[in-house]
């Protein structure tokens, strides 16, 4: 999921300078996990903005599981708030930049609502683990090498992103010279390859990365899912689990 942190409030306020009527929109996906776009975060933001003279004309709260970046779902909520969105001086997205830009494109192109819009959050990349502590696991390089590195990605776990590490900076405690709190990724890779009997993969020279696969923006085309079908599946699964 996309890790994120809320920007400092002063920065948000500065970006809203000269804007009076504000629409807040959250996200029921990653931003809810990180408490940067859930209903409580939206209410807190609204209260602080109101204290600073802003008028919150709509709070678009997406329920958990509704990602604002996935327009087949989030656009339903945009349509419900067409009037307020049309009247707004600015839209403050409590989501990552991905969600913000998806909503911006939909408003521009499908609803002809062209407004100043920005994200209240700073996105910090794909992260995993949780529920409280998360760490970046994947950088989406477009050319996954986990099969050769014991299931540990050196591009994200090694501070230098070395394909043929470690460097000379592994501390005697097995940590990274750049961040003494962090385990040396290549020591972890070495030990894991040793455990699964694949140390030959450590000796193998990994060729230079094809960064052409990461030329931006990358595009994907898939057969769209049947949303209603998926929601029924989810409901049935939750019921079978007794949730």
């Amino acid at each position: 999921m996309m890790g994120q942190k809320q920007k400092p409030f002063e920065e948000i306020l500065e970006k809203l300078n000269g804007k009076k009527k504000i629409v807040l929109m959250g996200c029921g996906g990653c931003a809810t996990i990180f408490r940067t776009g859930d209903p409580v975060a939206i209410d807190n933001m609204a209260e602080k903005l109101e204290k600073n003279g802003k008028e919150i004309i709509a709070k678009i709260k997406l329920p958990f599981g509704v990602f604002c970046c996935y327009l087949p779902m989030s656009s339903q909520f945009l349509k419900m708030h067409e009037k307020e969105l049309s009247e707004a001086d600015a839209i403050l997205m409590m989501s990552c930049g991905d969600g913000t830009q998806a909503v911006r494109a939909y408003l521009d192109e499908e609803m002809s609502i062209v407004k100043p819009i920005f994200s209240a959050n700073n996105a910090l990349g794909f992260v995993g683990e949780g529920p409280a502590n998360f760490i970046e696991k994947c950088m989406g390089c477009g050319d996954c090498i986990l099969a050769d590195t014991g299931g540990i990605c050196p591009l994200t776990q090694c501070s230098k992103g070395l394909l043929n590490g470690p460097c000379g900076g592994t501390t005697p405690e097995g940590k990274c010279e750049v961040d003494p709190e962090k385990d040396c990724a290549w020591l972890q890779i070495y030990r894991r390859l040793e455990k699964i009997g694949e140390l030959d993969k450590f000796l193998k020279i990994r060729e230079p990365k094809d960064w052409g696969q990461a030329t931006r923006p990358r595009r994907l085309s898939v057969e769209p899912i049947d949303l209603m079908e998926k929601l029924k599946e989810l409901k049935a699964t939750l019921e079978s689990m007794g949730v």
Partner: protein
Amino acid sequence: MAERVYSNLMRELKAGKFVFTGELEPGKEGSIEGTIEAARKLLGHVTACNVTDNPQSFGCVDSLAAAHKIQAETGMECICQLRCSDKNRLALLSSVLAAGVLGIKNILAITGDYVSLGDTPDVKPVYDLDATLLTRMIRRVVDEGKDLRGGEIRNPPKLHVGVAANPGSAFLDMEVYKLKRKVLAGAEFVQTQVVYLPEVVDNFFAKVKEVGVEIPILIGIFPAKSYAEAKFFHEQVSGVTVPEDYLAKLKETKEIKDKEKRKERIDQINIDYFTGFLEHLKSTPAAGCHIMAVGYPEIIPELKKVVG
């Protein structure tokens, strides 16, 4: 190892001589007269000198430019360090080709200290290649006249590539496997991180033998010119343990008020310590010794005089 011999360093290593190399560190400066002077002092005492590339991630005079000037003005053969922290594969290739143009015959391929450890911690790090891949690239350029994608290089440069290793690593198995990988990539010689303890050298060579690394290895030493320098290595440099008695003796010199007398005493401490160390080194498979006496070139002839 490449069949052809392009440098004095490789010639002497192939001849089985016990080879000494030194180290020069061009600084953050617009003139390298001091470095050239240091090179002159080492002439005749070492076979070649490393020229550092942005050491500890401080932006310094380009190692190729400095090495070219040192070679031209003093005749000292240089081993140009080339690190991956600051250059992508295009820029590294440019540097390797420039080395050919400038008459540089040896490159030490290193990954490089992380940029945040230097004086410009907000810089964007590169690491497009690592020491292994840089080694492979250099060998393809030199041996096959090809870049990493197979593109033709006319009149390829003629030079040798060395790599680094750390005998004092707390994870010696992994360290030597990594060295083996560098050898598979085409490394032709090794210069190690600083070592003070003879047993570290012995353990390293035992592991090197076990894993099957068969290129010449020069063991790095660092005669400290002050207590502070030795303490830095002991406390800050991964895998380096400085013996307590050596540290204690250097510490005592802080009490000597007279600068010249203090220096004499420090020289003597280094001669006493490293004489024994070098004698031990000569009994191991070491191909030589890399003396990293930056700013302390006068100690090298003294050490060699004792060792013979």
